[in-house]
């Protein structure tokens, strides 16, 4: 039931207090009743849940996370990756 997908705002209707969001090419309407007035703009990334905008995604933070993943990747080499995934572990405590 918890299906909150990142979507992009493409249109804002102030009268209806709703917006049109695009999720990978699928467009639908979402209510802005849970958001403070004038806090969103076209192009913002938001989370939608059962027809409502729940929050605005902090894209700078998302980018920082994605960059941090690159660092984690660079610390691993291919052999380690294969071994861990396929051969299990030698943990002393079970």
């Amino acid at each position, binding site marked *: 039931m918890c*299906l909150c997908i990142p979507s992009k705002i493409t249109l804002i209707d102030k009268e209806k207090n709703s917006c049109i969001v695009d999720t990978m090419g699928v467009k639908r309407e979402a209510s802005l009743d849970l958001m403070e007035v004038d806090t969103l703009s076209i192009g913002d990334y938001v989370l939608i849940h059962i027809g409502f905008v729940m929050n605005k995604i902090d894209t700078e933070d998302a980018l920082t996370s994605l960059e941090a993943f690159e660092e984690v990747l660079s610390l691993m080499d291919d052999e380690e990756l294969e071994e861990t995934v396929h051969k299990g572990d030698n943990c002393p405590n079970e």
Partner: protein
Amino acid sequence: MKHNHITLAHGNGGEESSLLINKIFYEAFNNDILKKSEDAAIIEGGKLAFSTDSFTVTPLFFSGGDIGKLAVCGTCNDLAMMGARPKYLTCSVIIEEGFSIDSLEKIVDSMKKELTVNGAIVVSGDTKVVPKGSVDKIFINTTGIGEVLYPEISASKITEDDLILLSRDIGNHGAAIFASREGIELSSDLKSDCASLYPIVKKLIDAKVKISALRDATRGGVGAVLNEWAQSSNICIEIEERHIPMSDEVMGLCEILGFDAISLANEGTFVLAIQKEDASKALEILKIYNSFASVVGKVTQHYSKKVVLHSEWGTTRFLDMPSGELLPRIC
């Protein structure tokens, strides 16, 4: 059976449908041809293929097709999936009082166009009109006879010599239908994949590709087909998840509504089990029609009658027969 009345889940093309069909219809009509439960029955000593299908899709007109196109594609595809050339169709309609004649003409026109694509003709039919409320606008049944060109195609003949292929990206019909339904208010570029498959099958046959099995992935989607094959042939089908082709739009809709694309209906997408040495040849032909065609898996004996999905990051899980009421009246 636990239920004593029919629920929508019984029409889902998955687990509940199978149960209903087996316990009530197969038991009553018991015979060897029926029990094979292929896409079409092979009769007259292997010379002919024979199949029937009813169409109740809502909405009647959707992006990529309508109930008419579907009614012809559906039955002709079932024949093509048995390696048969569709030749003769019947067409029975049950129409609700008050239905628009204009709409009826559009539907029949779509049927005519699709018959031409398959090279088939309608030779018999029936028309019933029922009072308002007795059916929802229009239901169509088509029954088809085809001439078998490539014999011995069967869901029970798949072996470890076969590779599993998909003819195109999955989930388009189910996603498009859901998107066009009232009450959900989505708009998108989603388009049903509704199409006749005989032309592609003919090319495969002409190129002498060694085909073990074919099945169009209608209700229950690709997931249902793979499970049916694993059961019928008593094999394990192992699929590489990353090779399953899917468009961004279908993925988006699945994300929004919590669907699994592998369980969504298709009406112009089929699964192939092709002998390994001919897989590349088959893929080349499929790609002429859709660049998303791909080899998605292989056959082993690791887990009897099961379908296994391998993820890109090295984990595995079973893919079970879809169950529950997913999308009613999808076809």
